[in-house]
């Protein structure tokens, strides 16, 4: 079996602000980086949770929107051409015979690097799963937490649950695809974009979808494959809706996930590091940003930037054990590949 193997100097797990900035500091030392993240876009929490919220404690920015900070970081690291593998979760870690680390993702992609930066923030973002007893047994047998391929629902009876934008957007999109579509929401009002809310109500009025409010899904039925969804109305009791698919869309929540089994010293859900270079108990593996812990740790982006910078110094010594490193200022040496930088 041929597998895609990506080799790099530093594999950065987590493409949040700290992982992104690590590329810059590594780039100054001519270390190549590859970023791996479970989310489909870079930026981590900043992009996923609060892109439109201002941050006030980034030095030099009196105020910057989280989404803008991510864009600026991407621009800042562009001259170093980092690799990106997005939408993939790092699953396993093992030491190779030549002393490097091999990381595999859930889809079998493989990465080899002498140095790993774990910049995983709060962990990997996973869909928030509703508390229905037997939901796990129907995962991939009718229950999907994401809509990956809308065509899979063509001609099917689909139940969507949720009250946010993604529940509304997929309801509108799948109304024409599915044979029957039911949207279940816990309350009467929706808090999604007004335009989407109006569209969903219009679809319901025209009989294109069934809108069930003040209700929650409380049970799933089927023998191996989903056949029905049990719904409980706040006042009118329980009833069953025949369904081939149930798509609960309640957003994402971070979980430490497979990282917890990598042999790294943990304190609660954080990786213990020293404060010299943010190294973990495993040689060549560093943890930077919100995912690490040490005496006095503050979960601040600016602290993560500092951690990334120091970790890169030690990474250089691992990647190039026979070379000496001399400290340089960017103002003096410029950035290779950046047009506005004076040539040396």
């Amino acid at each position, binding site marked *: 079996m041929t597998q895609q193997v990506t080799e790099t100097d530093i594999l950065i797990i987590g493409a949040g602000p700290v992982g992104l900035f690590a590329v810059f500091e590594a780039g100054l030392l001519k270390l190549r980086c590859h970023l791996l993240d479970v989310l489909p876009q870079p930026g981590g929490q900043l992009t996923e949770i609060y892109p439109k919220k201002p941050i006030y404690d980034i030095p030099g920015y009196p105020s910057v929107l989280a989404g803008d900070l991510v864009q600026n970081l991407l621009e800042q690291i562009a001259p170093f051409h980092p690799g990106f593998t997005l939408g993939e979760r790092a699953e396993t870690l093992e030491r190779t015979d030549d002393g490097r680390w091999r990381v595999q993702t859930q889809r079998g992609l493989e990465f080899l690097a002498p140095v790993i930066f774990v910049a995983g923030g709060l962990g990997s973002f996973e869909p*928030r799963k509703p508390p229905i007893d037997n939901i796990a047994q129907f995962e991939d047998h009718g229950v999907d937490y994401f809509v990956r391929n809308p065509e899979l629902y063509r001609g099917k009876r689909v139940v969507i649950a949720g009250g946010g934008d993604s529940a509304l957007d997929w309801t509108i999109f799948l109304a024409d695809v599915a044979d029957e579509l039911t949207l279940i929401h816990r309350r009467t009002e929706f*808090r999604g974009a007004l335009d989407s809310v109006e569209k969903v109500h219009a679809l319901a009025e025209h009989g294109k979808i069934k809108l069930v409010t003040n209700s929650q899904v409380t049970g799933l039925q089927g023998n191996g494959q989903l056949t029905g969804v049990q719904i409980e109305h706040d006042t009118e009791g329980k009833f069953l809706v025949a369904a081939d698919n149930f798509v609960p869309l309640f957003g994402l*929540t971070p979980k430490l996930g497979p990282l917890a089994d990598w042999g790294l010293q943990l304190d609660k859900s954080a990786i213990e590091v020293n404060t010299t270079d943010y190294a973990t108990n495993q040689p060549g593996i560093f943890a930077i940003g919100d995912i690490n812990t040490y005496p006095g740790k503050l979960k601040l982006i600016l602290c993560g930037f500092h951690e990334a910078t120091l970790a890169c110094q030690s990474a250089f010594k691992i990647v190039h054990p026979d070379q000496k490193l001399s400290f340089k200022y960017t103002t003096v040496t410029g950035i290779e590949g950046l047009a506005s930088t004076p040539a040396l």
Partner: protein
Amino acid sequence: MKQTILITVVDREGESHPLEAPTDMNMSVMELCKAYELPVEGTCGGMALCASCHVYVLNDRPLSDPSDDELAMLDSAFFVAANSRLGCQLHIREEMDGLEIKLAPVGQ
């Protein structure tokens, strides 16, 4: 003005924790629970964006009304009831003396 008030937190096992809560530190109920090492994650840091500090308010004390952000987040949370609030949005004030809350179950 009272510098500390009493807030009772019932944990997920049903045990009551009477906590002394400072009113002069701009602290939220989520932060209070964390300070006393009760099992509250407060994942998003207090932005009403994760619901990991979801609590039930058990008695009547003057609380600020939930913001749109808090209501939107509760829409995506589970085990939500009429008395659900996000602990991070309950800022500790003197009038809340004697407040009792219960930690909501954590999802999967």
